[in-house]
């Protein structure tokens, strides 16, 4: 089997890998913002509940979290799970895990904003929502972009963890193919795929950074 044949073989898995990647970003980035606000809340209980959540999400392996989300319903509640639940389990675990990381990135960005920006906005009569969305958020975006790039690149590689609950994304397929063909070539193909994917991510993020470099 040539590399091209292998890629053709892996194509369905590549689609699924990209699916996990896109869905995780779409769900976890807004969710992270909500969690960040909870983490910065004035309410003691909310703040500490969120703190605990972030601590658990960052302190345990994503692989374990995947298993808990996938097998948990059956072992805890004796709910029969269907095979279609596998994809949902992957998306739930990834979104919850990445939202925790994004929340901390957002918080760092928001808390690094100088107080003077809020004061100037207040004096000019901007409301709380206007101040956040027009003045604070655009500047926070610029500040956190390098950290977000890091996280997105990690996510590309982390999609391979879905194999732990036998979800047939690209890496799971590559492994199966490698055993059946007794060849390492599928792993080479997988490596090339992740690298090129991340090269693309890096280029896009660099473009974004350049676009925002018109001010300091």
């Amino acid at each position, binding site marked *: 089997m040539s590399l091209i044949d292998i890629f053709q073989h892996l194509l369905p898995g590549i689609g699924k890998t990209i699916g996990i990647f896109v869905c995780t970003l779409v769900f976890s980035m807004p969710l992270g913002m909500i969690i960040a606000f909870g983490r910065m809340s004035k309410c003691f209980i909310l703040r500490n509940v969120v703190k605990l959540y972030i601590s658990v999400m960052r302190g345990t392996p994503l692989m374990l979290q995947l298993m808990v989300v996938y097998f948990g319903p059956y072992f805890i509640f004796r709910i029969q799970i269907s095979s279609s639940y596998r994809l949902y389990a992957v998306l739930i675990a990834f979104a919850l895990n990445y939202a925790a990381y994004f929340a901390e990135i957002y918080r760092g960005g928001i808390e690094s904003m*100088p107080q*003077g*920006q809020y*004061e*100037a906005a*207040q*004096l*000019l*009569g*901007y409301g709380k929502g*206007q101040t956040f969305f*027009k*003045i604070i958020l*655009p*500047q926070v975006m*610029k500040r956190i972009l390098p950290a977000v790039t890091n996280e997105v690149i990690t996510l590309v590689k982390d999609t391979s963890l879905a194999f732990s609950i036998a979800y047939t994304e690209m890496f799971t397929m590559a492994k199966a193919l490698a055993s059946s063909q007794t060849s390492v070539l599928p792993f080479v193909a997988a490596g090339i795929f992740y690298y090129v994917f991340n090269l693309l991510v890096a280029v896009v993020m660099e473009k974004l950074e350049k676009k925002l470099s*018109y*001010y*300091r």
Partner: protein
Amino acid sequence: MLLEMNHIRKNFDGVDVLRDISLSVKQGEIVSIIGPSGSGKSTLLRCATMLETIDGGEITYMGEKAVWVENKKPVFAKKDKMKAIRSCYGLVFQNFNLFPHYSVIQNITDAPIHVQKRKKDEVFAEARELLKKMGLSDKENAYPCQLSGGQCQRVAIARALALNPKILFFDEPTSALDPELTGEVLKVIRSLADLDITMVIVTHEMSFARDISDRIIFMDGGVIALEGSPEEVFGAEHTRMKEFLGRFREK
């Protein structure tokens, strides 16, 4: 009276920064507040502009009570009233606080358009007029990071003026600037004096304060130690004032 501050007290972690300060400002008046660092000048301005809450006393704008103290807690006027009160004053900060992601013209026009909901063309025409007055007509599309400190401060002044405030506060507007840039900013503030805008200026520029002000307030240790016309204050036989001025002359 445009602004009345009565018996204002402010306390930071057990330290009395403002101790029973009363101050009123008439329409069209220019008042300079001078005094040594830590005497409470900036805190007084921050209380007047409600960036800081007060621990005692009351503040009234145009006869409308804006904030007062009940049971040791500050109480603000109702929301709609507060909105009207807030729109009658502006503040120019020591470190400008321009919005770095907005161009010069956006910095000036955004609040009039999106807060005051005024017509775009009208706001832009007025903003360009203001920029001309500030000598910055060619900087309309520049970003704050491309400007000098003096230019930034002039944009900040234009931004505050664009909302047509009745009273404009300046919190040490030239303290972050070198002497050359200080001159250009003071010139602009002087030109505003001719426009009959009410101004309250916290400053360390003594000769500027003497020239421009109708009234000078000398603050020391959280109280108004001396108050009067520039001639009265600068000529007063007041020990602390003389010490303070003496130190300035040495510089």
